[in-house]
């Protein structure tokens, strides 16, 4: 089985399309592109696709990942060309590579997500305040949760904040919580710029 990794950008109206709908959107694109995709065994066979960490609804991204498992070999160029013929505006394929089939999954190899937040007012004071505090408590379904340890780094210049946060199985910051951090400065736009 061949494993093809796709890196893509998501923007435009597609920012309002959630993770599960994106999965279906890709499955249909793969079917339209007539890629020789592999199917799972079992009662309801499904295409073998594997996605990276879900992108919060309403957010654009420069770095979404997806693995497509093919049952017949196809060149990365051919896969890219077949998909580009049929993908809709809002998705831009940035790279297609054939990767080793035994590699760990996308989600297990990613530890960090970087978000770029454009604020309305000067964010420097707020950013420093976040950096200097030891805990930021948020409420998730009646449970209190400290999200400060999940924030790894904050950089800022002008009205742009680049914030690095933990993004793995042990817990991640939600989109709404990220926005909540800069509520007072107002948010003009927010997007995911990197995953690693």
């Amino acid at each position, binding site marked *: 089985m061949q494993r093809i990794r796709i890196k893509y950008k998501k923007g*435009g109206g597609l920012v*309002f399309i959630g993770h599960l709908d994106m999965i*279906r959107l890709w499955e*249909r694109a793969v*079917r339209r592109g007539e890629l020789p995709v592999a*199917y799972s065994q079992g009662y*309801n066979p499904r295409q073998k696709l594997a996605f990276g960490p879900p992108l919060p609804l309403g957010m654009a991204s420069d770095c979404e990942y997806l693995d497509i498992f093919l049952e017949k070999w196809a060149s990365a160029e051919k896969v890219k060309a077949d998909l580009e013929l049929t993908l809709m505006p809002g998705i831009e394929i940035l790279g297609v590579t054939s990767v080793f089939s035994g590699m760990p999954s996308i989600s297990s190899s990613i530890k960090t997500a970087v978000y770029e937040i454009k604020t309305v007012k000067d964010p420097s004071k707020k950013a420093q305040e976040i950096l200097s505090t030891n805990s930021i408590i948020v409420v998730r379904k009646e449970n209190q949760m400290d999200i400060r340890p999940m924030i790894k780094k904050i950089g800022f210049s002008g009205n742009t904040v680049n914030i690095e946060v933990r993004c793995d199985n042990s817990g991640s910051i939600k989109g709404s919580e990220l926005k909540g951090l800069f509520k007072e400065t107002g948010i003009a736009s927010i997007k995911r710029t990197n995953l690693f």
Partner: protein
Amino acid sequence: MHDLIRDKILPAVSKPARYIGNELNSIHKGHKGMVKVALCYPDTYEIGMSNLGLSILYHLIIKREDAICERVFSPWPDMEAAMKEHGVPLFSLESWKPIKDFDILGFSLQHELTYTNMLNILKLSDIPLKRKERTGGHPLIIAGGACTNNPEPLSDFIDAFVLGDGEEVIREIIDAYKSCRDRPQPTPTHTPLLDNLSKIDGVYVPDHNELKNVKRRTVKDLNSIDYPAKPIVPFIEVVHDRATIEIMRGCPRRCSFCQAGTVNKPVRLVDPEKVVALAKETIKNTGFEEVSLVSLSSCDYPRIWEVANELGKAFGPKRISVSLPSMRPDSFRADIAKELQNVRKSGITLAPEAGTQRLRDHIHKDLTEENILSSIGNAFASGANSVKLYFMIGLPTETEEDLAGIVALSNRIIKEGKTVNPRAKITVNVSTFIPKKNTPFENEKMISLDKIQKKQNYLKQNLRHKSIELRWHKAEMSVIEGLFSSLEAGRGLPMAKILLDAFEAGCRFDNWTEHFDYCKWEVAIAAHKDQI
């Protein structure tokens, strides 16, 4: 307005994808010089986008060189609130332009419980609800669909109704609109246009022609319809999230309660070759994982097994499943069932309608208990785990014995089903008989709310097998549906006034249990009953 919608409104509402348009195969055309048509299904995006008629009309209008077509659906209450907060009027999915700026607003009315939503569409578009309060500067408001079998309750609000098949009529309506628009001296009202529309076969224009003189329009040859081979592919999961291919219109059966089967005459077929070709092309253009071959009674399509087999062969290796809704149990063939079910297992649906042979005979449901048992047995034996059954309560001449028959038949089905498949389950769906206009039963009585509830309770108490799930329609909803669709039930009631009152009292999304508010309807009905 675009920025406001994108930056303030959409991020604040649930399921924003309902309002953004831009789906694969949606078409965006410039508005200049065009006849601008907005098509509306007055319910959520997910329900409206599942309607095949809307998809066909969208395609037929948008391919014209002189017209554009855009879609609009009912905004969910959170969206309505957000739009009001920001002073944004209802807008179309494609161009995000106000509905008020369109030339024609066409409603697909398939269910009476969407009427308050229809009025809300007008209100949110800042269009006067009553046709007499509108001018030539407002869009022409037209409506088609199953509800036009009984258009009178809506005749205060709708300018023109299309009775029957819409494919040809919509072309004639747009032509008529264009010729009136292009006159040297435009008129301040739609009156001359309405005069012209009233001359089109199948169009009922209140105050311009008589309903009793309007004959339903029928497309003689379905093969002449340019069906969409590139239907829109929704971003979000809709109710019927699949390629839908029509194979037949009308029904050779004569079930006395069935409006669709009675009014859609004669039975017309799409050629098998066309069905197969269209299905293949549609899958290629959409990437859907399922094709559904639709009609009122799929097994009465003469070459159904040939078509199903052909598609099964073509799609099986691609893991695309083929489904055949509206199958009658007597025609259920296990080998084909297996062929069709080889990819994605979906449920099987059968409609005995009544619990005893006597009542099935009385309503002309041409089915015996042996038919039902043997075919459902086949379905379970071929690997299906669940079967849905449809029954009606309140049918003319129904007795306690008939109700007991529903229980007995269901129990017998599950008992025999378990012998061939230990995991067998059935869902028993019970709806309430409504004596719909234009059916052989149109003059029969509809049972009262109290009786509906008593019969439902009887079934709830007696259908208690752990592998039988009982579902029923909310009794109060059936009552309201009956008032609008049945001459008998609505007799003597000023339904237009009741509708307006209920709407103004806040009724919306009446076919949604969480929104349906029977008290408001009761108040509206009582207010007008007293005046009689």
